[in-house]
């Protein structure tokens, strides 16, 4: 049976995503920290996007750079930042820098529960306005049908890994 993903706006400037995986934390952690594995799931096929390149040097101070392509757009999209904390099998923290200063900071924790692992992803924005703006810009779709999916993707992905 498929596990359920929940999303909650925890406070004025925080978003929380949770999901349980049927595997020990060290395995789930590995899939978040090896670029060749990350590449296989971070850009879901059902969203029509694909990686053009995926670089991630997952250690404290290391950087990442993800570049995506989309069928409906000629412009690739780049997301990048720096890892602030890398605690094996339990915690990852990175910045989202493509939006300039004041981008969201993402913390992911991996909590073992019996044979399962609870993953909690926590985005904290610089201010209420920053998160409101991210949501507002994702709520307007003025691009017409062909671009709707891209618009949707940019909005969601944009807010998950960038924005000031």
């Amino acid at each position, binding site marked *: 049976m498929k596990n359920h993903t929940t*999303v909650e706006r925890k406070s004025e400037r925080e978003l929380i995503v949770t999901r349980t995986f049927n595997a020990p934390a060290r395995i789930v952690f590995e899939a978040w920290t090896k670029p060749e594995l990350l590449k296989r799931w971070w850009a*879901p096929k059902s*969203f029509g996007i694909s990686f053009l390149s995926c670089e991630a040097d997952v250690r404290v101070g290391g950087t990442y750079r993800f570049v995506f392509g989309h069928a409906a757009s000629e412009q690739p999209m780049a997301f990048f930042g720096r890892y602030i904390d890398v605690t094996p099998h339990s915690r990852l923290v990175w910045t989202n820098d493509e939006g300039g200063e004041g981008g969201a900071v993402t913390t992911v924790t991996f909590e073992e529960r019996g044979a399962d692992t609870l993953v909690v992803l926590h985005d904290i924005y610089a201010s209420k306005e920053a998160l409101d703006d991210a949501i507002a810009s994702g*709520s307007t779709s003025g691009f017409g049908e062909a671009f709707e999916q891209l618009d949707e993707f940019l909005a*969601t992905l944009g807010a998950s890994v960038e924005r000031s």
Partner: protein
Amino acid sequence: MLNHMVQYNRTGFDASFAALSDGTRRGILEQLGRADASITDLAEKFRMTLTGMKKHVGVLEQAGLVITEKVGRVRTCRLGLRRLEEEAAWLERYRRLWDARFDELDGVVEELKRKKKADGRNKRQ
């Protein structure tokens, strides 16, 4: 949608309930449901001082039930419910993105598990 309104943060709901506990504020929402209005319009309609009306509108605004916008010297108020709906819709799209990602991650995790198991067996042999 309903699920998301349920998941929508509790402090938001508490603020909404507090905002709705007052008869004047419920009246303001009804009024704004008919047409947008300035603070001055509302103050006149409810026979209240500007300061008093500003306070009520402030509470409604905090709760996300009213949105105000200042154009020139006039502050116009309108119902903010649409913003709540937009936010819920955005959160649902955001959830779908992560859900799609995690479904693919399940596949990667299963594969790693199988590999680890096989490696373990090989080591023991």
